[in-house]
């Protein structure tokens, strides 16, 4: 990926990624800089390489879908990356499904895809599973609001995956009471600090066979 360097201009700069070259355009007081970043906006799409704890390549032992909720609560992105790492270390191929913002938070934080593998739109994931075009062995649903419960229940109904609900946020205990479908609940009061939820996940070890 070509590195983006800010010039000394104090004006507000908007950087727009483009595949055909580098251009600068001034519109009023705003400067647009169009930068060549190669295909796919410079985002690496190399295939996922699974390695075990000792760093040796390993054969995938299963697949997992991470269903992201609204990224309004900060711990989601951190826990998603942590979970992806642990799943990959256990030989499980993680796939992320979220809305545009939730996916972008992960993709932009991991541009060389050291952690991330496949990332897809949440609606597309629901459609593919419903139409039996794809399914997963495990499904982790991030929940911090009522919509998260709806998505988890939907995954439980349409997928054969083992469902894990990751429930967090200020009112996590009220959300736990709403879960009335078969799943493994991993819950903690975590809003800004991901540690309580990380500890809860470590106790369950959902990456274990």
């Amino acid at each position, binding site marked *: 990926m070509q590195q983006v360097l800010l010039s000394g201009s104090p004006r507000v700069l908007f950087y727009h990624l483009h595949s055909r070259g580098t251009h600068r355009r001034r519109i009023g007081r705003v400067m647009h800089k169009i930068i060549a970043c190669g295909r796919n906006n410079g985002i690496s799409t190399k295939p996922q390489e699974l390695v075990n704890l000792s760093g040796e390549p390993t054969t995938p032992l299963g697949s997992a879908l991470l269903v*992201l*909720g*609204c990224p*309004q609560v900060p711990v989601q992105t951190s826990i998603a990356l942590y979970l992806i790492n642990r799943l990959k270390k256990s030989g499980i191929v993680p796939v992320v499904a*979220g*809305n545009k*913002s*939730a996916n972008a938070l992960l993709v932009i934080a991991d541009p060389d895809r050291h952690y991330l593998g496949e990332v897809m739109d*949440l*609606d597309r994931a*629901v*459609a593919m*599973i*419903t139409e039996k075009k794809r399914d997963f062995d495990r499904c982790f649903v991030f929940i911090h*609001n*009522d*919509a*998260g*419960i*709806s*998505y988890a*229940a*939907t995954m439980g*109904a*349409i997928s054969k995956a083992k469902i894990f609900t990751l429930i967090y946020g200020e009112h996590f205990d009220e959300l736990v009471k709403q879960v*009335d*479908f078969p799943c493994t609940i991993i819950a903690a009061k975590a809003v800004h600090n991901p540690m309580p939820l990380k500890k809860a996940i470590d106790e369950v070890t959902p990456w274990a066979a």
Partner: protein
Amino acid sequence: MGCVESMNYEILMRDGSFKECRDFIKQQYKEYIDVQPGFKIFDIHLIGVPPIAIGLDADFIIFPYTKPCHGTFLLRVEDTAEAARLRALKK
């Protein structure tokens, strides 16, 4: 008709819980059907806790539409063909 934004819809309830939307449909509409999550309506796969209620009022269809950041909306859309298809499923 794959995108909700392209529909001529009316929002009956916004930012509500899924349960509130289901209760509203069952209380306000005599005619409704229960479907499972993932059921396709207007090329949209419905999200929700089963069973999901879809209300029918003449040619209008009332259904919940969930977005991760905004909770569940209750939408009312007029579509003669889709209403007829849903009624046929009841039989």
